[in-house]
């Protein structure tokens, strides 16, 4: 059987066996609707309440500040629309950054159709937002700032606590939301440490199931619910709760929180082996993102003169799964907006490769990649009209 080396943990992660085990009873045993009153429903309600308390414990918030959603995309949409529409009488200005996930960027663009003005802050060449830029962008019309904790493509970690201070010093009524979808697995996401009013999580990025997430909403935050219906989630997000996946998510988050240091140490060692060996073995290769302020599992590199999809296809033939910011791999046919915002030249963005390691990644996996990647790059360069230097 062909070897499988999965190095795309930023895209999604396998469900942790303990999370899976925790979920199973809620599919066909304790399958009751948590809003009903009989025994099997009460079991579901109990599990739901327990999961909410567990998530709240890790976020350092109250259980009633935790809203369960269908994932990162819904949490981001709900946060932005929920605050913007609720706070509209107080102002129409939103601040975000140019390297956000499309769940944030496209939602902000959508809000522009409703009379909101959006500032898309620049980032430095490492992909980081400068708190001073946030401060300068704030006007008396600003109602919401949304800046991601860590970037999904290059792994750069933003100074969220510093940004929070700057915002709150200026005007404590401005709501600060952060998309912590990528950060949750390896960064402290206690909301008071970060100083945020709202925070998005998605379970499938931290070894939980797909299709479930969290939106934390601090008490007294102006918030207009975006989904009307049966009144679940204290009227803030209607719809029968997905008990099984909520339980699985809570378990996965618990495991992530308690094992964070060890997980980071494991990932970082493998990540650094990848980065250092690739940079030293392959000429004209570059690291994208921040050299130190980056997610423990993210290695994003560019190879001059070659295109990302052609690298991915070659790696896939060897069973290696990873991703690229190349224009040819994006539906929009434009190179990664993240690399563009960082000022990476188009040709170099076109040759980017994102390798994200995970809990089951081994040294042998890294060796396997290192033994094949230089040959692939060489083969593609030999074919490239851009490669004057070989």
């Amino acid at each position, binding site marked *: 059987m062909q070897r499988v080396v999965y190095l795309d943990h930023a895209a999604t992660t396998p469900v942790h066996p303990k999370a899976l085990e925790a979920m199973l009873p809620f599919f066909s045993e304790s399958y009751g609707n948590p809003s009903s009153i009989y025994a099997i429903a009460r079991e579901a309600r109990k599990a739901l309440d327990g999961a909410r308390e567990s998530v709240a414990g890790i976020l350092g918030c109250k259980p009633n500040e935790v809203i369960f959603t269908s994932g990162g995309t819904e949490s981001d949409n709900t946060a932005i629309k929920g605050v913007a529409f609720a706070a509209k009488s107080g102002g129409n200005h939103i601040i975000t950054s140019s390297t956000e996930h499309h769940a944030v960027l496209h939602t902000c663009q959508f809000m522009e159709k409703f009379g909101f003005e959006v500032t898309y802050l620049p980032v430095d060449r490492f992909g980081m937002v400068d708190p001073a830029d946030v401060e300068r962008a704030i006007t008396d019309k600003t109602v919401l700032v949304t800046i991601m904790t860590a970037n999904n493509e290059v792994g750069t970690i933003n100074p969220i606590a510093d940004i929070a201070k700057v915002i709150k010093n200026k005007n404590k009524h401005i709501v600060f939301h952060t998309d912590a979808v990528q950060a949750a697995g390896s960064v402290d996401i206690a909301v008071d440490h970060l100083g945020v009013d709202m925070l998005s999580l998605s379970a499938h990025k931290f070894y939980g199931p797909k299709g479930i997430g969290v939106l934390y909403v601090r008490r007294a935050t102006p918030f207009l619910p975006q989904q009307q219906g049966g009144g679940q989630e204290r009227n803030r997000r209607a719809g029968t709760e997905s008990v099984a996946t909520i339980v699985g998510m809570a378990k996965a988050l618990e495991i992530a929180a308690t094992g964070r240091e060890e997980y980071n140490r494991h990932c970082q060692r493998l990540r650094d082996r990848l980065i250092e060996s690739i940079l030293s073995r392959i000429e004209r290769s570059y690291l994208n993102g921040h050299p130190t302020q980056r997610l423990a599992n993210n290695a994003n590199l560019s190879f001059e*003169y*070659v*295109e*990302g*999809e*052609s690298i991915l*296809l*070659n790696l896939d*033939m060897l069973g290696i799964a990873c991703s690229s910011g*190349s*224009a*040819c*791999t994006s*539906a929009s*046919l*434009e*190179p990664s907006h993240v690399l563009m915002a960082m000022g990476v030249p*188009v*040709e170099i963005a*076109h040759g980017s490769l994102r390798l994200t390691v995970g809990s089951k990644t081994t040294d042998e996996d890294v060796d396997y990649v290192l033994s094949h990647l230089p040959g692939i790059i060489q083969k593609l360069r*030999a*074919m*490239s*009209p*851009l490669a004057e230097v070989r």
Partner: protein
Amino acid sequence: MYTDLVMDHFSNPRNVGTIADADGVGLEGNPVCGDLMKIFIKVKEDRIDDIKFQTFGCGAAIATSSMVTEMVKGKTLDEAMTITNRKVAEALGGLPSQKMHCSNLAADALHKAIEDYRTKTAAVAG
């Protein structure tokens, strides 16, 4: 996402390389995605006697480059001018719709190489 034939041309591209004393050279770039293709031809008695390519691009770009060189080798220049990007894609058993633009380089680069040859020979003859 790609057909077996596309993957075959991608993994074992035919006619990769350059021709030092080429009779015609065509360079075509795609400003949208950044793919770039260069075709070199050697012409003998109005036929494509030899052809080579270099491509910076994705699977679709490399496979179409390879395929177009196979399709026109030995053909007359007029025959080669009738090759379209669509015919190249069809010969590969089709390409994913979002990839069509990446494949729109191969025939264009070929036509540019032929035009380059024709301008040069016209200049000599004239």
